[in-house]
């Protein structure tokens, strides 16, 4: 059972799919395959180390793939870590509160019949062979700016050049870094693009049209410039409304849709969030608004708040945010509805929603047409793709 469910756990080398780097795939295959390492994940390109804040499972406990087994904190984010493997937790190599480099051995999972000696051997071999990534050395692909449709668009491209592409489209006020827990996991056998929408992140701040249809043009321009004939589009919030708009207006460009907490599915939005997000320029005042995005406010770190402020400080960013907000929202009301057109989408549509979303209510996921599959994830808010990344990644990969 363990062999099938095993997934690469050493994410640091995900941009080099040929170099698995996984200690478990050593010569003693049959035996070793039953023993699996749990290593410090790489959440985002800048992560070099993380703190294991708390183990949630005891030694001897059977754990399932996707089960929350520990809390990990980095300077960017604090989040639950979901098990990449299934088996019995046999060792905790790192204790609560310890900080270790990305890729370091945190614990060992093995079938109950594997001997204690074999587990100890595994740990010893791993520790002897482990070389932490040099600080700042291998940072993987980095975001770059490209020209598309006469606009300057910042994007991060990962994965090989062949395979069915994925294009990630972020929501209002966000940028491509919102996919930091998703992009790497999906880029093993296909090209995965994440872009900054016009007016956002490192893309050009000038906007002609901030509506979903207007921004959809920019995404199609990007796909044209990159030679992407069609792609699986993953959109979040306003980005999901943009993705759905593309599927309706340019169906040949869309292989499938994963819509994460989409805008345009119901009449209302938390207008006070939009207003507060735009208005606040101080970290301490902005933070409560960002905490509205998640079910567990502990997830919002100072660096996350500062990253939002870094975008908002750019010349033209505030004007762009105001323009996008005005084009899409009117106080607590959404200006654009896609609900009546969803049945017309030819591509498979998967909607994912956090049960505790305080920006766009999960009630908008009710009563959708039959061609739309809905997954509601408990214990998550509006940025469910960050809060429950493994679940959302599995849905995207399976779509």
């Amino acid at each position, binding site marked *: 059972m363990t062999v099938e469910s095993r997934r690469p756990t050493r994410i640091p080398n995900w941009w080099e799919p040929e170099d698995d780097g996984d200690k478990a795939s050593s010569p003693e295959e049959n035996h070793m395959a039953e023993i699996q390492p749990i290593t410090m994940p790489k959440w985002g390109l800048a992560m070099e180390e993380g703190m294991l804040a708390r183990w949630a499972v005891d030694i001897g406990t059977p754990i399932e793939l996707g089960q929350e087994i520990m809390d990990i904190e980095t300077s960017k984010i604090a989040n639950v870590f979901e098990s990449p493997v299934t088996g019995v937790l046999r060792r905790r190599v790192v204790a609560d509160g310890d*900080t270790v480099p990305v890729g370091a051995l945190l614990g060992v999972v093995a079938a109950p019949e594997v001997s204690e000696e074999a587990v100890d051997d595994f740990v010893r071999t791993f520790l002897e062979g482990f070389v932490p990534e040099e600080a700042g050395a291998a940072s993987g692909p980095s975001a770059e700016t490209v020209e598309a449709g006469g606009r300057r668009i910042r994007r991060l491209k990962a994965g090989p050049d062949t395979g069915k592409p994925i294009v990630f489209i972020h929501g209002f006020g966000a940028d491509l870094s919102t996919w930091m827990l998703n992009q790497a996991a999906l880029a093993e056998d296909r090209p995965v693009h994440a872009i900054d929408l016009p007016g956002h992140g*490192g893309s050009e701040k000038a906007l002609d049209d901030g509506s979903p249809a207007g921004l959809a043009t920019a995404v199609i321009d990007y796909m044209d410039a990159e030679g992407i004939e069609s792609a699986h589009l993953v959109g979040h919030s306003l980005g999901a409304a943009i993705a759905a708009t593309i599927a309706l207006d340019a169906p040949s460009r869309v292989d499938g849709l994963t819509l994460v907490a989409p805008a345009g599915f119901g009449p209302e939005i938390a207008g006070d969030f939009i207003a507060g997000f735009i208005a606040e320029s*101080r*970290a301490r005042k902005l933070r409560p608004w960002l905490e509205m995005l998640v079910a567990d406010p502990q997830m919002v770190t*100072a660096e996350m708040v*500062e990253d939002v402020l*870094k975008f908002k*400080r*750019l010349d033209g960013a505030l004007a762009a945010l105001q323009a996008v907000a005005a084009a899409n929202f009117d106080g607590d009301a959404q200006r654009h509805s896609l609900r009546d057109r969803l049945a017309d989408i030819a591509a498979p549509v998967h909607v994912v929603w956090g049960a505790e979303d305080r920006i766009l209510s999960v009630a908008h996921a009710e009563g959708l047409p039959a061609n739309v599959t809905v997954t509601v994830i408990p214990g998550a808010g509006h940025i469910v793709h960050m809060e429950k990344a493994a679940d959302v990644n599995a849905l995207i990969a399976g779509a």
Partner: protein
Amino acid sequence: MSKKSYRQAINEAMRQEMERDERVILMGEDVAGGTGAAGDQDAWGGPMGVTKGLRPQFGPDRVLDTHLAEISFVGAAAGAALTGLRPIVELMFVDFMGVCFDQILNQTAKFRYMFGGKAVTPLTIRTMYGAGFRAASQHSQCLYPVFTHIPGLKVVLPSNAYEAKGLLIQAIRDDDPVVFFEHKAMYDDEMEVPDEPYAIPFGEANVTREGDDVTIVAFGRMVNFANEAADNLARRGISCTVVDPRTTSPLDTETILETVAETGRLVVVDEAHPRCGMAGDIAGLVAEHAFDSLKAPIKLVTAPHAPVPFSPALEDIYIPGVDKIEAAVAAVLDHDRKVAAE
């Protein structure tokens, strides 16, 4: 976004503001540089190469290489600001402030107040500070507490390249006189800095680390040392909040007091001398307004009350270092154990 040094970030801030607003001019000793050197329009770009490339791009009318007399060219820059320009004037080393201080203290800082708010003085004074450059006691001081003392001046201490670009753009756009302190040991420090212009507002501290045990308030270059100390301490299970106030005037007292209320312990790190400095100032602020939340006495990590030594060995000991910050945090935490033992 691309990797830029502190030097490049400062240069880019000036270039982008000069492109955006033709009222922005630059003046100072050797800002073009080159008397007697090859390429006399742009030989050096200042002693550290910070202003290199600006003279060829903007010409001698907007980039003025001045004579060696701070009293007149700093005064001229203040006057130019009053008439509607937005000058950036470079006081090469802050140690030279004595030569031109009346222009700053009694003129520049007072115009708006004494003219009943009818005059604005959008002047940016860029200046180098700090030890670690083997430049001896007349070229190594941290005199920002002197400027912070004077109402009417805004005082900025950028702690890295990102901060430097955004704070300098804010300084140039600000209608009040701003003294912008560049640490001479940081010019080669690189990090990701947006290519686009951006302004970081004054009086808003940056919380660079979040922790539960101790608040560390640090200034300028010391923010990096405090971050490093906090990261080392985190590996030992001690979590620190690090606050970079960014500007000493205006000062974000709210963030300092709130974070101290959360941790109950305070260490202040300042490269300046201890008497009448920012470290004592922050300690006083917290003692007055957050006394009840303190669980241990406040600890200050500063340079000694002595001139910066020329001996490299002594200079290294003189500068507050990561080890001293870690020791101060440990001492503050040790107070609990001592009290418990009694």
